[in-house]
C-alpha cells in the first residue's frame, strides 16, 4: 500500500487507464451504476429497499445453476429473482407471518441454497467473485451480457418511466384510468432482477442492494423533481463507481466495497449539506451570511 509522493493528479487519473482491465472495469461499472441508479429512483420512492435486498440475494442459486448448465446466468437469476417475490407473496397470503419476516426468511433461504449449490456443483464458479464482485476480472462474454441487459433495462425504464412514476406515486389512479398496474409491478420486478444480475458483477451479491437504493436516496435529498432525481441518482452512482475503482486501484482495496463506500459517503454528504433537506441546510447557512 505505498503511495508515490510524486504522484500527480494527472497520473492518478491516467495511469490506471493504461491497463486494459482497468478501462474495462471503469466502463462496465459505470454502465452498471447508471442502470442501477436509474432504477434506484423508483425503488426508493416505491419503498422497495427490502424487496431489492431480497431479490438481489435470491438470484444467487439462479446464477449458480445457470453457470452449471451453461445457460446465460441472467436467465437463472431472473427466474429465481421473480420466483422469490412470488414465493414471498404466496407465503404472506397463506400464513399469519408478517411481511418483513417472510421477506427475510425467503431470501436468506434462497441465498443459503445458492451457497450450498456452489459447494456441491463441480464448476469453476468463484464464490468470492459472486459474493463480492470482480469488476477487474470481467470476461468478454460477461461484458456482452452486461451491455445487453443494461440496454434492455434502460430502454424498458425509459419507455415506461412516466407510468412507473405514476405506479409508485398513486397505483389506484393508474388502475382507475386503465393503466395495467399488474404489468408495471412485474416490469419493475423484472428490471430489479436484471439490475441485480449486472450489479453483482461490480459489487457482488451482498452489496448490490446498495447500488439499488443509495443513489436514489441521495438524489431524494437533493431535489423535489422526479426527472432531476433520476439524473442525480444516475450521476452519483457513476461518480461513486469511478471513485471506488480508482481508490481501490491506488490503495489496493476491495473494489466492490470501495464503490459502495463511495456511494455511502456521497449520501452522507447530501444528508448533512443538502440545500433543503440536509441537517445543516446549506441554503439557510448562506442566506445567513448575506
Amino acid at each position, binding site marked *: 500500500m505505498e503511495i508515490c509522493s510524486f504522484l500527480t493528479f494527472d497520473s492518478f487519473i491516467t495511469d490506471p487507464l493504461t491497463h486494459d482491465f482497468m478501462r474495462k472495469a471503469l466502463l462496465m461499472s459505470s454502465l452498471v451504476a447508471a442502470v442501477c441508479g436509474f432504477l434506484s429512483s423508483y425503488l426508493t*420512492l416505491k419503498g422497495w429497499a427490502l424487496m431489492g435486498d431480497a431479490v438481489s440475494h435470491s438470484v444467487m442459486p439462479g446464477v449458480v445453476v445457470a453457470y452449471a448448465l451453461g445457460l446465460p446466468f441472467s436467465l437463472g437469476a431472473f427466474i429465481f429473482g421473480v420466483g422469490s417475490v412470488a414465493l414471498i407473496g404466496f407465503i404472506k*397470503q397463506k400464513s399469519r407471518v408478517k411481511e418483513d419476516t417472510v421477506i427475510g426468511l425467503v431470501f436468506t433461504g434462497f441465498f443459503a441454497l445458492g451457497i450450498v449449490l456452489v459447494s456441491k456443483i463441480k464448476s469453476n464458479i468463484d464464490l468470492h467473485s459472486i459474493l463480492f464482485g470482480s469488476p477487474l476480472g470481467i470476461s468478454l462474454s460477461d461484458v456482452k451480457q452486461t451491455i445487453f441487459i443494461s440496454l434492455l433495462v434502460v430502454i424498458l425504464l425509459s*419507455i415506461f418511466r*412516466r*407510468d412507473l*412514476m*405514476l405506479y*409508485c*406515486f*398513486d*397505483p*389506484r*389512479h*393508474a*388502475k*382507475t*384510468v*386503465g*393503466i395495467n398496474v399488474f404489468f408495471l409491478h412485474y416490469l419493475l420486478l423484472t428490471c430489479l432482477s436484471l439490475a441485480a444480475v449486472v450489479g453483482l458483477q461490480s459489487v457482488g451479491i451482498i452489496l448490490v442492494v446498495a447500488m439499488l437504493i443509495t443513489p436514489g436516496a441521495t438524489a*431524494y435529498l437533493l*431535489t*423535489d*423533481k*422526479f426527472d*432531476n*432525481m433520476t439524473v442525480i441518482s444516475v450521476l452519483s452512482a457513476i461518480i461513486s463507481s469511478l471513485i471506488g475503482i480508482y481508490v481501490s486501484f491506488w490503495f489496493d482495496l476491495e473494489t466492490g466495497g470501495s464503490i459502495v463506500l463511495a456511494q455511502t459517503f456521497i449520501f452522507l454528504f447530501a444528508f448533512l449539506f443538502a440545500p433543503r433537506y440536509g441537517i445543516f441546510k446549506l441554503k439557510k447557512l448562506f442566506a445567513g451570511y448575506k
Partner: protein
Amino acid sequence: METINYQNFRIEAENICVDYNGKVALYDANLRLKPGQICGLVGMNGAGKTTFFNALTGFVNISKGKIRINGESVRSAQKDQTIAYVPQNEGIDSQFPISVWDVVMMGRYGSMNIFRCPRESDVQAVKDAIERVDLTNHLSTPIGNLSGGQRKRTFLARAIAQRASILLLDEPFSGVDIRTEKLISELFIQFKNEGKTILLSTHDMIHVREFCDLVLLINKTVVAYGETSEVFTPENITTTFGGISPDFLFGPES
C-alpha cells in the same frame, strides 16, 4: 361534448361482495346513481367505504355481484376514463418529488400514447383544470410544499383534467381550509350542472345535509339508502355507527 341521458344510470352496483383472502369487507351492497346526483357515503372506519370505492374503480375485484358503469363493465369504464378517484390526503405520499403540474397531468395519462407525451390538448386541459381550482400560481410547486387544502385541490384538478363523468371523493373536506371548502362546494354545483355524478365519503354530517341529494349508510353492507331528507335520520345513523348516537360521534350541533 357527450349528450347526457339523465334517465340512464351512471353507476349500478348490484349485490356486490368484496373479500380480502376470505375476510369479508363488503357484502350485498347496492347502489344506483344517475347523472347530476351527489351521493354521500357514510360509515365507520372499516365499514367498507374505501372498499366500495376500490370496487367501483376496479382496484379490487368483486367476488360476487355486478357493477355497471354507464351500462358497461368496469374494465371499459377504465379505458374510457369514466371514473376519477380523488384520494384522501393521508392516502398520498406528500414527500413524493412531483409538482402540481405533473400530478394534474397524470389525469391525462389514460388518454395519451404509450410514452405519455402531452399533446396541445392535454396541456390545455391541465391548464384549465388548475385554473378552476385556483392553483395557477403553484404550477411548479412540489406537492410537499402545499397546504392540505391546496393538495386536495390539486387532486381535484387531476379529476377535472381527466374529464371523468363520475367522481369518487374520499373525505374531500377533511383537513382543508375554509377557502378550499368553499371552492370545493362551488365546484360540486358546477359538476352537478355538467351532469357529473359524485360519490363522496365523509365524516361530517353537516356536509351530507348540505351537498348530498342521496345518502348511502354502510356498515359492511348497506344500512340505508335513499334521499338524504328521508334516510339521514338519527336512528339510521346510530345503526350505522354500531349503536353509538350521532351526538356522541359528531357533537350535538349535527
